[in-house]
């Protein structure tokens, strides 16, 4: 069970894997996630589903290996097995259940930041299969950190690239590119779906607000069980506490309290590491933009 059928390194510290999980593949829908565990003492790690094949019985995940637990996952080779692979969890994206003629009439823009391109892909692909044309922006730090660009090209109506250093596509942030598309290139959007780092989703939501464009974000909160039992993933949406695992992971970006969500993501970073990071930032005279000093 849960055998690694295929493994590929997409970029530095970003690995793609197809996992044998026929039941999960049969039930998976765009927008959902899985919980993965490696080893007897392994942590339960939520990961968004990147693709799935009902016929071949696999589910694809993309792992950014920055911590000890994610490194354990990417250390597995083809033929090895994950200890656990539970899902699909969370709710499918709203459009899966909406009347298709309404979805087709909608002008949608997907914004993927970093590994966020992985969970955006199955949504765009699913929509394409239903005959819905959507635009996509993929943002990355550098050209060599871009993932899923080729696959996305095949399913997106228009694909735009933004890199922080200008090594590919638009030189700048995804929010600047989105503004450029709307303000200068005559693009009109009724809905934006942003998936990526919390800070990017926050600024996408802030940017779309004055335009009145409905904005959906997918929250990668801390979770233990992923089924509503622990409440670690609590997030404030429209002033109410919601559980990202069972009520999300997708929410209205204009209603999410991102500052709280970012602070809660840091809950289990060790006290020392946090203190050290803040001290280093202050010393460098840098105003922390990702909420570490909160």
């Amino acid at each position, binding site marked *: 069970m849960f055998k690694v059928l295929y493994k590929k390194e997409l970029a530095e510290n970003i690995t793609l894997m197809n996992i044998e999980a026929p039941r999960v593949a049969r039930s998976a829908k765009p927008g959902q996630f899985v919980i993965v565990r490696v080893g007897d003492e392994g942590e339960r790690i939520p990961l968004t589903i990147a693709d799935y094949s009902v016929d071949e019985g696999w589910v694809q995940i993309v792992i950014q290996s920055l911590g000890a637990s994610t490194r354990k996952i990417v250390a597995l080779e083809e033929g090895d097995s994950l200890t*656990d692979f539970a*899902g*699909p969890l969370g709710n499918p994206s709203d459009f899966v259940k909406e009347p298709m003629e309404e979805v087709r009439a909608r002008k949608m823009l997907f914004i993927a930041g970093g590994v966020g391109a992985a969970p955006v892909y199955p949504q765009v692909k699913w929509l394409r299969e239903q005959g819905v044309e959507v635009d996509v922006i993929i943002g990355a730090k550098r050209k060599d950190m871009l993932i899923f660009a080729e696959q996305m090209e095949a399913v997106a109506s228009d694909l735009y690239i933004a890199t922080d250093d200008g090594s590919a596509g638009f030189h700048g942030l995804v929010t600047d590119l989105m503004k450029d598309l709307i303000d200068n290139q005559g693009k009109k959007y009724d809905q934006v779906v942003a998936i990526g780092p919390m800070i990017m989703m926050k600024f996408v939501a802030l940017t779309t607000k004055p335009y009145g464009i409905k904005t959906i974000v997918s929250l990668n909160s801390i979770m233990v069980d992923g089924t*509503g*039992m622990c409440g670690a993933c609590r997030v404030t949406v429209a002033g109410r*506490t919601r559980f990202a695992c069972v009520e999300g992971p997708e929410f209205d970006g204009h209603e999410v309290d991102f500052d*709280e969500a970012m602070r809660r993501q840091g*809950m289990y970073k060790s006290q020392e590491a946090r203190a050290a990071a803040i001290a280093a930032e202050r010393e460098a005279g840098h105003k922390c933009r990702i909420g570490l000093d909160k």
Partner: protein
Amino acid sequence: MVNKIPRVPVREQDPIIRATNFEEVCYGYNREEALLEASRCLNCKNPRCVAACPVNIKIPDFIKALQEEGEAAAAAVIAEDSSLPSICGRVCPQENQCEGACVLGIKGEAVAIGKLERYVGDWALDNVEGEEVVLSPDAPKVAVVGSGPAGLACAADLAKMGYRVTIFEALHKFGGVLSYGIPEFRLPKDRIVAREVEKVRRLGVEMERDTIVGRTVDIDTLMDTEGYEAVFIGSGAGLPRFMNIPGENLNGVVSANEFLTRANLMKAYDEASDTPIFVGERVVVVGGGNVAMDAVRTAKRLGAESVIVYRRSQAELPARREEVHNAIEEGIEFQMLTNPVEVLGDERGWVRGLRCVRMELGEPDESGRRSPVEVAGSEFDVECQTVIMALGTSPNPLIVSTTEGLESNRRGCLVATEEGATTREGVFAGGDAVTGAATVILAMGAGRKAAAAIDKYIRSKE
């Protein structure tokens, strides 16, 4: 004459030492102690203890069997009514059930029925070979959702009747609340829970972990596509409640479910575990039930000064008496008649304290307990870095929301008959999923009743 023997005390780990480890608190009786304690039973003609047991274990009979024929005979008597004696002997609130009704308790001390049950149950785990059941490959299939006490008991009975049973568990370990909820120091995982699960597996029951019914697969698929003729839902009551007071989403406020799952299921107290857990120097646990006691004693073992905050007085604590007693021995501070009104945070959004008010007891409410009333102007702050909310749990709505024709009540509990039949044909339920958070023994009893009802249902179809 027998009455003159005082209740045989049970050996326990020293409180100061045990408050720093996760080893089991209570060592239980040895043979000699068990036989001496057994000799105290009056073998009443009208045994009030049996009537007070939620599953009516024939208590005087098993105690007599222990004295006259030995452990195997005693285990056989218990097995007629209970499939989890090692567990129930440890976690049942005996003082409100069998022991609370014991005649000896009127003037002196009740027979230690729980400790005797545990002794017999542990002996059976060590010495009784699991029954070998040969299942016919075309026996009818039954799906059991959840591997907690209700699911295990239901699956075991059905397997013994010859059904092919598959248990679907959402988590990566079997046992439900026995694995994720009740701590190691009260219910050892490898020595007791894992072996009870193995016992059920040896009966030929298939077990699939990481399978969330309602997500990975739904009830309709199980029945229509995968050929299960009946389904038993024993999915428990796993959703945590919060107080909805200001500051509850600060870093450092967790549900008891999260805290205990990290500690028990993920073994976060062990350095080898990859799962983190945070306590800080001082922890406040809000609540007075068994889960609150489990959380506060776990926090203590992780090195924090640990406090219980409860809105009623000690007499109303819903926790087992033994747990409260053990907690006090271990140095847990109890702030009774105290209710939180706000979690206080520091400038970085981490918990720095809990603002509380004093309460006083007013008129009895519908449960007969005197309801607490706020004392005006009594606000005070308790310093802490972690607040654990142990306010009770309710059933997970996932299965109801994904299954046509399955009804739940206002509290989210599945609607089911005494025998466990739900509003949907072929679907049965029992345990906390039906009653809301209750006890292991009630769940076990409900699982067994449902097994009988499922058998009857499947036979009636043929």
